[in-house]
């Protein structure tokens, strides 16, 4: 078997089609992940806090460290793959180095902060929950916008 490397994705039509469908699937996956977290933890920081740290008045138990570890481990599996697939395409775009480095730095920071601060919530309390929620939203927001940008560039045959 012989693999042909191409400098411009648009020169290879089948490869371009695969990338377009992959991006559409990843954007859908990120949308579904946001929806799943809204169902699991809620849509505002107070609801996240209640779901993760519990609430004595409402007899809601906090999530145990084992439960948090399991959730973070399962989440990271998908998020790492999404990050690598989108970022590998993002570095090929014609944006300036500053924009590309900014994109990688922000998304990578979000991807590392989300699991670590969620795991630290038994010690950090609401600060940890807020950081985890913000990092989760920032990561998904930037990745969705980045993936959409690459998708449009691919559809216009500029990548």
């Amino acid at each position: 078997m012989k693999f042909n490397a191409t400098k411009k994705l648009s020169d290879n039509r089948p490869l371009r089609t695969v990338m377009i469908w992959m991006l559409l699937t990843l954007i859908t996956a990120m949308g579904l992940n946001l929806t799943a977290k809204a169902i699991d933890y809620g849509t505002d920081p107070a609801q996240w806090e209640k779901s993760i740290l519990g609430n004595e008045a409402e007899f809601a138990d906090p999530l145990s460290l084992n439960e948090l570890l399991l959730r973070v481990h399962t989440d990271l599996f998908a998020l790492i793959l999404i990050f690598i697939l989108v970022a590998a395409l993002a570095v090929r775009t014609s944006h300036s180095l500053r924009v590309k480095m900014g994109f990688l730095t922000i998304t990578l920071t979000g991807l590392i902060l989300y699991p670590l601060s969620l795991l630290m919530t038994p010690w950090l309390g609401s600060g940890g929950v807020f950081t985890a929620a913000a990092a989760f939203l920032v990561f998904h927001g930037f990745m969705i916008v980045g993936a959409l940008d690459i998708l449009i560039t691919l559809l216009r045959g500029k990548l």
Partner: protein
Amino acid sequence: MHHRLLRILALAFVALVILQSLLGGALFFRSVGIGADQIVSHYGDKSFHGLIEVILPHALFIGIALMATLHFLAFIPTLGVAIKQFATHALFLLFFLDQSSVLLIAAGWSTAAYLKIIAFIGFELLLGWVWYLIFRHTLKELV
């Protein structure tokens, strides 16, 4: 500059897989334990369906993570083919041993718990060594 960004991305990927492995290790130690008796009692109680629910995502992720990690190793020109071949065969074999030992434990062969411990520790140590080689080489190229 494009290649430099790809190298940074490669380092980020390796760092993220290390983070994921550490979290997986912590989850294993906290929910299962490292003693052979604890491993037998944890996996012995699980149904076949329950075991598949654990093995399937691991097979999927480890397959992809090892492929990505080892392809970086394959591109290091200063390393011999024999080392690369050894690391690849050994990592995949240890992973298969680690996962299949769980099925053996559930089937009633409790001695397989020792096989799991050896395969798990061997896999982690060997993967750590491969990551070290990749980090060392990538940093050399970046600096």
